[in-house]
């Protein structure tokens, strides 16, 4: 039975901001995911650095974009993680119909907060400037900007100033579940009546230092350096690790009462969300999920949404292109209690953009919300050779975009190191 909630307790999405490897605006990103356009490229600096995986997803056109959005004074103290977070947040804010506040203005948005997560934060600043300068005995020459750039909360801090945020402002981290977890927390803050609006999502810079530790673990793809667009292969028999990527995805969440009051365009509604941890037991570990934890997380989100599993039209999975993909789909299947042929359409945004780590949940939720709003499910590329354990799902995994005019309900999940899970139920807005 569906919950009946007052408008002040219903949470809707009224703004979207995205910086992705295959599109750096809401419109170019939508066009790219519809057309199956990959944002994965070969990067010479990774080859020069001795990386096994020499491909990655780095947002393009940022040099031009950043000077359009940010002053020289602001950029002086911003690394790539902060720049992506700032542009995506400004876009989400203005997409929702708000004006960007003047830096000289006195108004503070006391009812608006921001939870912008990150997986690794400002490690480019730490690796390029802070550590070499300190080790060279040049502490007095480091300058004033490294604290804000090396701080974990640097991405949310910069957003707070740019948008005059007056409610809770925090950077959260739950590894690769970060973005989804941040949106769940933002949703709860509004449901708790503690804020009317929350910017929520995640950002990740494109530091080689972040990618080096992953490369050393041999969890990234080293088989497609000569064919970058084929490298990210979730659900494929030839999946050989994920492709590291960067960017930001930020949603403006708002109470339905607030959205109605100002006549805002409503993209979709969050009707359920849950985060948990599998305790690193029963097959779970630092780097692998406890299937019981995953299933409990999905079931709890569905229960909160008050929907039946068969009502779910599509799953935007975590699906990174590691050995875990078939396990993830097995968990979805058990959690939903449906036979493979009756499962929702299953898709992976990472097939197009790689794994944007702490930004993944944010960017992929932007994709899911656009799909609900426009009535389509984007295709997952590079899995023509479907993993043999997924053969029974072949009819439920579109390789090309399908129009689904009556698309109503998407389940989005993200999972991360530490055996952490997050699942959201997103519904097309209905009065």
């Amino acid at each position, binding site marked *: 039975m569906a919950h009946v909630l007052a408008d002040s307790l219903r949470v809707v999405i009224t703004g979207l901001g995205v910086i992705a490897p295959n599109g750096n605006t809401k419109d170019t990103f939508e066009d790219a995911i519809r057309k199956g356009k990959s944002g994965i490229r070969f990067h010479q600096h990774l080859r020069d650095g001795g990386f096994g995986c020499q491909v990655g997803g780095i947002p393009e056109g940022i040099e031009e974009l950043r000077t359009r959005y940010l*002053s*020289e*004074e602001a950029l*002086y103290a911003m690394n790539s993680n902060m720049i992506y977070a700032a542009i995506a947040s400004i876009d989400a804010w203005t997409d929702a119909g708000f004006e960007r506040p003047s*830096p000289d203005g006195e108004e503070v948005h006391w009812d608006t907060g921001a939870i912008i997560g990150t997986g690794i934060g400002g490690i480019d600043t730490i690796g390029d400037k802070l550590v070499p300068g300190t080790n060279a005995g040049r502490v007095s*020459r480091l*300058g*004033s*900007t490294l604290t804000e750039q090396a701080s974990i909360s640097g991405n949310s801090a910069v957003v707070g100033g740019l948008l005059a945020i007056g409610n809770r402002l925090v950077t959260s981290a739950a590894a690769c579940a970060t973005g989804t977890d941040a949106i769940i927390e933002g949703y709860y803050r509004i449901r708790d009546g503690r804020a009317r609006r929350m910017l929520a999502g995640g950002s990740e810079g494109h530091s080689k230092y972040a990618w080096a530790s992953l490369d050393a673990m041999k969890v990234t793809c080293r088989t497609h350096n000569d064919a970058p667009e084929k490298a990210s292969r979730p659900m494929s028999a030839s999946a050989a690790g994920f492709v590291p990527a960067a960017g930001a995805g930020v949603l403006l969440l708002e109470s339905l009462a607030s959205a109605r009051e100002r006549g805002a365009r409503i993209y979709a509604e969050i009707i359920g969300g849950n985060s948990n941890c599998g305790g690193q037991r029963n097959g779970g570990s630092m780097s692998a999920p406890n299937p019981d934890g995953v299933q409990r997380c999905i079931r709890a989100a569905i229960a909160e949404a008050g929907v039946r599993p068969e009502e779910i039209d599509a799953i935007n999975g975590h699906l990174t292109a590691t050995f875990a993909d078939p396990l993830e789909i097995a968990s979805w299947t058990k959690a939903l209690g449906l036979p493979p042929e009756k499962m929702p359409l299953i898709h992976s945004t990472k097939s197009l953009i790689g794994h944007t780590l702490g930004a993944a949940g944010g960017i992929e939720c932007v994709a899911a919300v656009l799909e609900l709003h426009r009535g389509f499910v984007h295709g997952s590329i590079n899995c023509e050779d479907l993993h043999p354990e997924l053969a029974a799902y072949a009819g439920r995994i579109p390789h090309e975009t399908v129009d689904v005019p009556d698309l109503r309900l998407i389940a989005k999940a993200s999972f991360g190191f530490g055996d952490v899970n997050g699942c959201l139920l997103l519904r097309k807005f209905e009065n």
Partner: protein
Amino acid sequence: MDEKEVFQKVVAILKPFVKNQEALATVGLDTSIQKDLKVNSARLVDIVLEVEERFEIQVKDEDADKVRTVGDAVRIILAQKGSA
């Protein structure tokens, strides 16, 4: 190096840190770096580092702390470099 030349170089160093870019149009020796140009106080550290590098001088902390206006900075530099 004369006062005008030092002044122009100091203004060029300040420019990236200036939040009120309009105030640069009328910048003079009496212009306050923080009040008029709206330079973030934390960035004074970076400005001193830039000054030291470009003019090849060392600025003592106690001298740097006294700088309020563009003219104050120019005078500290001229005192070390000497005026032509």
